């Protein structure tokens, strides 16, 4: 008997339930209610965001597969394809940081190798609450250990990421994981089922009561013995996932696979429905054949279990035996649990009963879709530069900035990730973008970026900026940016002001992607990141992939040689609104974010990439958080070489710390300066000599001198001290 309470516990709105009841013309069974609640929830159906996701540019010369599959696929030439996607595991990571983050990594790796790609790199974007919030330290420790624990054991290099702290994440941390895989363009696998009467095969780990959503609390009452049936946290098993990867790739090579879909959210339900609906086929499941880890599991539990390391496939019948042998070799379960039908029904049998019999299209690709009301965000008042006094001790301000939570070194984090496995890592964490070799001289560059304080202040400009910064980071290592994945983390879309952030953010992403020829090929939306009325900073994380044709020409950011000239490419800074300097030194988070002129961004970036290609630049770094000064400090620390910066006397803190966009710092041999500045002028790009690489301090003439030793201890010191509880 389906009560209103039960409907509520399943997260269905009364009208949604009505719609469903009409659709099937009767009261659903509990299992059917569970199935529809899984298929029609925000996570699987994208009902609030779909309308706006459609506005994103998703095509381009390099795009093989855009949004709609487990991951996006792009062509990088020579028959090589890059398969990549980013996904969030925010809530589970807040409940149980280690397992939540670990299973997040496991899930996104599966999305990538489900398509026939061997994962070659992983990245992650993490947002935590204020450092002084009582939960933060424990969450950081658990999440970082979980990401490393899974990726290291699975055997993928974790090559990059982001970590930010802000009180607005106190009650909702963000764990966004990105995986990147390498496949052959002629051997990509899809989830669309083909052919009637073919076996549907279950592969991988056994099914337990892991992560069945809160609703089972209620349903357990039906099953009796609540304690035993309590839904449990999903635990990751990277060992099984590694075996699953090898078994899947072996199986795909054998030609047995017609369609394949990993079991992620609402495992068996989502995967089966997606395969059928996409292929315009029905699916019939025999739950008695599902390998279970626990006794007495109900149909409801099996359909909603989120046990990890599982796959569903449609196989060529004649190859079933061969397929089974491969999975046994890897110690994995293999069971034929159903078959495809031509009646477009999703039928589920268990112990002789039909537990569910539903129209598959309406569950899947024809799920409900909303056009939620939204409010255009107000533009922040411009900042009055005159009421910001420059610090009287600039050197001290620089040390404070470089040792601040958001700008300090992330070594404590990335040293817990194996970033060299694979023997192809060409640029370690700490650079503008990670670089991984594909083969010979060909490599790809990877970066994840977003500056949530910008997006909060202006969702449209801030989201343009996220895309632009990702594009800039790829450019700064010499890569040609190709495509992105995105992970949209927002609050409750039923609130018009939040929906407004989402809409404007997607407009901004779309505009930037079009202007920079940087299409979106995959992504994920995480909404309702909100606790007791306080929602997170809007955080549309952008994960970009770029191509480096000749790794011998790759650029890196450390200062290389005493005497090298330092050039500023792009205009001098003047915008302090929402800058890190304003927040860390003046304790103010206000003003508009730096505006993004996409035409200028492209012009300047293309120029820098060309110069890198010519091999005349000895170091390159883009200017972002902390402005020119932070950029110089990072280049100096990385190269263990100081610099002498000679700016016009008139310059003040806006020139030093402004976060104006489309800017880079580059170094070259002194004799090259003239030629480069001329080339820049010809290309319509501002470029100016600002100083030289020299000594063992960052010296800004007449303003500040900071010895590298002091700078290093400030920069390297914060994270370990924080984690040790000394701060």
């Amino acid at each position, binding site marked *: 008997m389906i009560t209103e309470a039960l409907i509520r516990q399943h997260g269905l709105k009364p009208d949604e339930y009505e719609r469903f009841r009409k659709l099937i013309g009767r009261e659903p069974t509990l299992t059917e209610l569970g199935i529809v609640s899984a298929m029609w929830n925000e996570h699987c159906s994208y009902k609030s965001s779909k309308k706006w996701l459609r506005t994103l540019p998703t095509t381009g010369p390099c795009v093989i597969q855009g949004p709609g599959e487990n991951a996006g696929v792009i062509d990088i030439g020579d028959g090589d394809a890059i398969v990549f996607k980013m996904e969030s595991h925010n809530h589970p990571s807040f409940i149980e940081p280690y397992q939540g983050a670990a299973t997040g990594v496991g899930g996104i790796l599966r999305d990538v190798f489900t398509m026939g790609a061997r994962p070659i790199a992983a990245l992650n974007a993490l947002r935590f609450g204020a450092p002084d919030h009582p939960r933060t330290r424990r969450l950081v420790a658990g999440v970082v250990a979980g990401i490393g624990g899974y990726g*290291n054991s699975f*055997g993928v290099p974790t090559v990059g990421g982001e970590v930010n702290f802000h009180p607005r994440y106190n009650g909702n941390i963000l764990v966004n994981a990105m995986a990147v895989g390498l496949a052959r363009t002629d051997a990509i696998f899809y989830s669309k089922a083909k052919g009637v009467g073919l076996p549907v095969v279950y592969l991988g780990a056994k099914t337990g009561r892991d992560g069945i959503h809160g609703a089972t609390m209620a349903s357990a009452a039906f099953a009796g013995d609540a304690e035993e049936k309590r839904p449990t946290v999903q635990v990751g098993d990277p060992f099984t996932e*590694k075996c699953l990867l*090898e078994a899947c790739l072996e199986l795909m090579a054998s030609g047995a696979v017609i369609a394949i879909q990993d079991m992620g959210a609402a495992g068996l339900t989502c995967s089966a429905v997606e395969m059928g609906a996409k292929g315009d086929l029905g699916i019939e499941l025999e739950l008695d054949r599902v390998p279970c880890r626990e006794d007495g599991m109900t149909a409801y539990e099996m359909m909603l279990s989120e046990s990890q390391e599982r796959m569903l496939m449609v196989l060529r019948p004649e190859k079933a035996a061969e397929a089974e042998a491969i999975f046994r070799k890897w110690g994995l379960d293999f069971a034929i649990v159903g078959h495809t039908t031509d009646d477009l029904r999703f039928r589920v049998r268990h112990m002789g009963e039909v537990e569910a019999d539903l129209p598959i299209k309406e569950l899947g690709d024809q799920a409900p879709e909303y056009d939620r009301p939204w409010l255009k965000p107000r533009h922040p008042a411009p900042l009055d530069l005159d009421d910001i006094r420059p610090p009287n001790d600039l050197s001290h301000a620089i040390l404070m900035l470089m040792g601040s939570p958001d700008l300090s070194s992330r070594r404590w984090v990335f040293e*817990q*990730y194996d970033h060299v*496995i694979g*023997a192809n890592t060409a640029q370690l964490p700490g650079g503008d973008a990670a670089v991984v070799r594909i083969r010979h001289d060909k490599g790809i560059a990877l970066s994840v970026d977003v500056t949530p304080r910008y997006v909060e202040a202006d969702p449209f400009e801030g989201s343009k900026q996220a895309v632009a910064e990702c594009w800039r980071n790829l450019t700064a290592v010499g890569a040609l940016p190709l495509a992105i994945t995105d992970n949209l983390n927002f609050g409750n879309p039923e609130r018009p002001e939040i929906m407004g952030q989402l809409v404007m953010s997607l407009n901004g992403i779309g505009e930037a992607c079009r202007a920079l020829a940087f299409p979106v090929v995959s992504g994920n939306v995480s909404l309702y990141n909100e606790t007791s009325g306080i929602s997170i900073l809007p955080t549309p994380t952008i994960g970009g992939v770029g191509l480096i044709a000749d790794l011998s020409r790759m650029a890196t950011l450390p200062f290389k040689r005493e005497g090298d000239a330092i050039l500023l490419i792009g205009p001098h800074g003047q915008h302090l609104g929402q800058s890190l300097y304003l927040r860390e030194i003046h304790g103010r988070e206000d003003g508009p974010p730096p505006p993004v002129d996409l035409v200028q961004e492209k012009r300047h970036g293309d120029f820098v990439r060309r110069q890198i290609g010519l091999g005349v630049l000895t170091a390159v770094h883009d200017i972002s958080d902390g402005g020119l000064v932070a950029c110089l400090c990072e280049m100096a620390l990385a190269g263990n070489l100081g610099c002498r910066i000679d700016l016009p006397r008139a310059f003040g803190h806006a020139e030093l710390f402004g976060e104006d966009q489309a800017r880079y710092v580059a170094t070259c041999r002194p004799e090259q300066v003239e030629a480069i500045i001329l080339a820049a002028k010809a290309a319509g790009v501002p470029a100016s000599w600002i100083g030289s690489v020299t000594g063992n301090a960052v010296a800004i003439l007449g303003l500040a001198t900071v010895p590298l030793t002091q700078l290093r201890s400030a920069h390297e010191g914060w994270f370990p001290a924080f984690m040790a509880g000394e701060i």
Partner: protein
Amino acid sequence: MKSAVIVFPGINRDRDMAMALARFTGRAPQMVWQTETELAPDLDLVVLPGGFSYGDYLRCGAIAARAPVMAAVRDAARRGVKVLGVCNGFQILIEAGLLPGALMRNASLHFVCRRVHLRVENNETFLTRKLGRGDIVQAPVAHGDGNYFAEPATLRALEDEGRVVFRYVDGTNPNGSINDIAGIINRDGNVIGLMPHPENMIEGLHGRTDCAPLFESLVSA
């Protein structure tokens, strides 16, 4: 020279090692699955690569050390075939009793991936003959259980008999291992285990090539 790389489920640096061996020996190594009970009779070198065999569950290397193929590896070692264990491979050799001591949890309790400095303590081994005694090379480590331990008697024997091959120096000991031990060799001089990953520092792409001489030593041996 003819080499084989032993593969257990969960091993994940097998490809790195195969690439490195192919690069220096000029031929791809045989990849041998853990259920094999025999190795090719004419092998010069058997490598147990790094990774997380059986997920490092129970104890690192414990389950792999009891896999069928290990009887054949023991046999080869007895016949004098050179055996090299890297990281998880080192842990497996210890669990299999082919090398003494134990590898425990890093003192920091954290997995650690960074470059360390190694001093060559013994350059008369099949892995170090192309290096000088006292030479210092850099190499990456990537492990959570590299904290070498041995009871006093064993430790004394290792030190007195010059069977410590590599020692962490310049304060780069990443795991708290006793006497800064990073790698050791057996009495017969044909079985070596070490925690660092030489296969990840042999070409320009890796930033440095410090570990190329280790592979050149293998080949010349």
